[in-house]
């Protein structure tokens, strides 16, 4: 045993198996962690994602591989032959065949690998339970609902239109992704393009949920882009906001918001749910969990459950979700020109969404006779509460007594609903 014990040991070492792509991805994971820790970029997600990225690229260990991946790693000739036989492919082409296998074949291959004693890696299990099932982003959305105060939106429902306008970033990017197919190396399907476009929703759980349904292979890049650009909102948005507005517009002070009654707050989630039920059932998982969380919060009779949704559940799920997203950053899948395209498209999505929100703000400014400060339109992209804070900051630059934060919270949370609605549309048209 020990003769090939030493051999097996050397073969089991990381340095004997590390390929350049993995080394590069380890650096990428390190970069994400650096941004999270040193720069404060959405650390709750980017730290676990970065760490998961490193783990997913540990050579030989196959932490992010399913049982079939472990069969391939083990290189047992008899087992490889059995798998090749099942997939009807020569052993030499097994890697490719597994990569391109269709639904039913994948099922059969996994069953075979399991029967031969191979087990999926830890991160793959996290991914299957948390994301493939769709459960983790939905539970986080429930927590977001339980954490969000929709008062500003209830007091001024018209700001919903700003949240609607900002979703233009999504659909513009969708076309951009499809147009990118003229560049050799890109071959995005309508489903891929839709999943990429949702980055413009500036909402992490929505992006992960949609990507897991429409383009699981792109999920890693999409999630990383979404959270990175959300962290960059204070850098991306201000120039666009300043370019599209006059100083006079930025000075506009808005009327104080009316107080909102407890009953209104309770009826709000139910009203949103009802409209979703009647007109856009495909958005029901997202809108349903968001409004459920908010009802737990506002009902006032289930504080235990509300606190649980706001703390224990969302924290535990965030850890698993982050590691699971990181598991999608395996070198052989992540390192492609498509990833670069996704990062570029994501940036466009944020810029266009911001611009659309601000322009809608200008329209509302005109229509309302100057009562609306167009800056608050920029908060319509979501990225709660960062975008609203940016609005407040840019507003203060022009008028030192103008606190827009509260008014920006309206479009800000409207943006969350808006992107969930957009996700529902994409699921309904593209997903089936």
């Amino acid at each position, binding site marked *: 045993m020990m003769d090939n014990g030493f051999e097996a040991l050397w073969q089991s070492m990381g340095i004997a198996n590390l390929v350049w792509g993995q080394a590069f991805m380890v650096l990428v994971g390190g970069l994400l962690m650096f941004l999270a820790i040193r720069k404060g970029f959405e650390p709750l997600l980017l730290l676990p994602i970065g760490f998961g990225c490193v783990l997913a690229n540990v050579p030989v260990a196959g932490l992010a591989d399913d049982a079939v991946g472990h069969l391939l790693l083990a290189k047992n000739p008899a087992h490889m032959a059995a798998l090749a036989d099942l997939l009807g492919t020569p052993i030499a082409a097994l890697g490719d065949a597994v990569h391109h296998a269709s639904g039913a074949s994948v099922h059969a291959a996994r069953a075979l690998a399991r029967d031969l004693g191979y087990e999926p890696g830890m991160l793959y299990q996290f991914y299957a339970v948390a994301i493939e099932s769709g459960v983790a982003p939905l539970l986080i959305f429930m927590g977001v609902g339980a954490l969000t105060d929709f008062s500003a*939106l*209830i007091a001024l*429902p*018209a700001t*919903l*239109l700003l*949240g*609607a*306008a900002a*979703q*233009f970033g*999504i*659909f*513009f990017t*969708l*076309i951009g*992704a*499809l*147009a990118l*197919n*003229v560049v050799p190396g890109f071959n995005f399907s*309508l489903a891929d*393009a*839709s999943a990429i476009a949702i980055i413009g929703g500036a909402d992490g759980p929505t992006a992960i949920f949609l990507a897991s349904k429409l383009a699981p292979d792109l999920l890693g890049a999409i999630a990383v882009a979404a959270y990175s650009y959300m962290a960059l909102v204070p850098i991306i948005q201000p120039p666009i906001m300043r370019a599209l507005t006059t100083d006079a517009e930025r000075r506009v002070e808005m009327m104080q918001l009316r107080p909102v*009654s407890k*009953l*209104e707050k309770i*009826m*709000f989630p139910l*009203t*949103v749910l009802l*409209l979703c039920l009647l*007109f*856009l059932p495909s958005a029901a998982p997202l809108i349903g969990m968001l409004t459920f969380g908010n009802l737990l919060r506002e009902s006032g009779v289930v504080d*235990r459950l509300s606190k649980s949704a706001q703390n224990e559940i969302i924290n535990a799920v965030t850890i698993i979700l982050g590691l699971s997203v990181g598991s999608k950053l395996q070198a052989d899948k992540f390192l492609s020109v498509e990833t670069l395209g996704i990062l570029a498209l994501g940036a466009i999505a944020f810029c266009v969404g911001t611009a659309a929100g601000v322009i809608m703000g200008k329209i509302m400014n005109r229509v309302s006779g100057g009562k609306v400060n167009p800056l608050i339109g920029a908060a319509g992209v979501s990225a709660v509460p960062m975008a609203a804070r940016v609005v407040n900051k840019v507003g203060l630059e022009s008028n030192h007594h103008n606190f827009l934060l509260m008014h920006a919270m309206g479009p800000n949370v*409207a943006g969350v*609903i*808006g992107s969930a*609605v*957009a996700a529902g*549309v*994409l699921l309904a*048209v*593209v997903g089936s």
Partner: protein
Amino acid sequence: MDTGLVMQGVELMLLGMGIVFSFLAMLVFTLRGMSRLANLLDDRAADDSGPMPIQVADNRQLVAVIAAAIARYRSS
């Protein structure tokens, strides 16, 4: 083929933005109606001070102390 896909994207954009705007515009009106209804209900409740929620918990000290442990969770 490629332009066909882009055209599909344009159509999807029109459809999508249309629905997003329609949905949220509808929500604007519904929320206004909701607020009016809520005020109405609140006013009426203030007037006839309506049926109170069932209240069986005795407020006496003794009861509170003894039941505290179990009352923490009432799902059983």
